């Protein structure tokens, strides 16, 4: 990462973006450093494929660069950034026909029990020789993959993007209560699947 001034590090995302729009390339570096990990993992967790995640990740940032002139700081930069990523992922799902159509009223409470059992089975099949962290990480990721996409999306936006309920609602285009419900169910399932790791 290129060296940046302290003022740039303390600036908000919106200020950095405006600085970049004005021609400050270092502001973009700072902004990119702040959001590169979370956005990449958000795409990776959704797509479950590194190459697809790389493609989506790069497309999102290139879109940020391309439409920077139209950027208006009416909302948080992170919200705008993850909105771009969310829409891009939806488009990817639609294109690959991998998207699972789930009703917005489905809170995932009817998740099949066998999936959770399968996670346990994965855990038991893990070789002893492998590192404990990798075992734990694999279990966590497997547990996340068992979540419905909306719950997973809300969970990732909260834990990876650090967004609030309102921001998640804005990104996903649903109401705050819906987001709250999705987050509640997602957390409950993950705790149930990973309670032996906590």
């Amino acid at each position: 990462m290129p060296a940046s001034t302290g003022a740039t590090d303390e600036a908000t995302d919106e200020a950095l973006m405006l600085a970049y729009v004005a021609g400050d390339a270092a502001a973009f570096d700072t902004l990119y450093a702040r959001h590169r990990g979370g956005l990449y993992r958000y795409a990776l967790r959704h797509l479950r494929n590194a190459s697809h995640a790389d493609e989506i990740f790069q497309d999102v940032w290139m879109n940020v660069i391309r439409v920077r002139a139209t950027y208006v700081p009416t909302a948080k930069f992170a919200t705008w950034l993850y909105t771009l990523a969310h829409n891009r992922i939806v488009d990817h799902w639609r294109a690959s026909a991998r998207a699972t159509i789930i009703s917005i009223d489905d809170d995932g409470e009817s998740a099949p029990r066998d999936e959770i059992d399968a996670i346990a089975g994965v855990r038991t099949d893990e070789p002893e020789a492998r590192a404990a962290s990798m075992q734990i990480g694999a279990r966590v990721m497997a547990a996340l993959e068992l979540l419905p996409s909306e719950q997973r999306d809300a969970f990732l936006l909260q834990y990876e993007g650090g967004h609030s309920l309102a921001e998640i609602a804005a990104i996903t285009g649903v109401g705050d209560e819906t987001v709250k419900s999705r987050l509640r169910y997602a957390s409950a399932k993950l705790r149930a699947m990973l309670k032996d790791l906590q």
Partner: protein
Amino acid sequence: MSERDPELDALWRRHSAETPPAALDDAIRAAAHRAVHAKPSTAPRARAPWPAWATFAAAASIGAIAIGVWQLQPRDIDETQVVASDTPARSVARQETARKDVAPSPIQAQTPAAGAPAVSSATDKTVSAETDARNDSRKPSPFPATRDAREGKEAPVKAETQIARSAPSTIAAAAGAQEERTLRARSEARGSVAKVAPDTTNESVAPPASVGGNDTARVVPAPTIAQPRMAQAPMAMKRSGDAATADAGSQQSQAAGNAVRANPGTLPSQAGSLAAPAPRQAARTVDDFVDTIRRALADHRDADAVTALAAMRTQFADADARLPADLRTWAARVPRAAN
């Protein structure tokens, strides 16, 4: 349940730490830097970058257009100037004069002046045409060459028209006299008129024997120039009507006065011949005959002298009596014609 679960959050943070590849980071940062350096988003560019060759191309185009316009405009003026210089009026008039010296125009020979013998009329018209053409060539004219050249060619015929046009105007006559004086001076300088006059105007130019030297040479052309106007005066009067008669007389008188004032060496008789009014034309014609005869005899051109005497006898019944005493003896030896 919107708050994060601390235990789940810690577990998640421990096992979710993937980052994009370094190559992807570099590509995205490079793209961002290129975009900033190109400045495509800060403000829409007013125009595309101006290539270096475009400046030279524009300058060359403007120069070519300017040169083309410049060449077009003066070319039209130059063509006019070339026409003017290619057909100088003076040379055309001179060529006409030389041609008339060799052979008088049939029109001149066949167009008798009113009240004048055929020979005299032809000679007078030739001289008149020559004089008018020369005068026209010297006049500053808005249509210099072509018009003058054309007038020079048509001078023998057009001379009458010009005289008729100028006859009613006294001022024009005075100006004509002034121009004749100028023409005389220039002709002396060239010597062309002096050479031409004895040949072409035998009967109209007759320097008195008593007058000689340079002054004579200056005076000689005066009758050759003034007389044609006199000879043409009846025609001008006839064409211009009766009102022109008085004007023509006053014009001739004024022209004679101008000639005398301008040339102090001019003899009174010659001045009279310069501006003789129409009623005195017969007496003047006798003088012309006398002068012609004297010159012919002086040049040992007896045939011309005899011809002039015959013409005088044809016009005047008492021609021999009108002759001076010295010529009367000579005329007595010349037999009269049968008719």
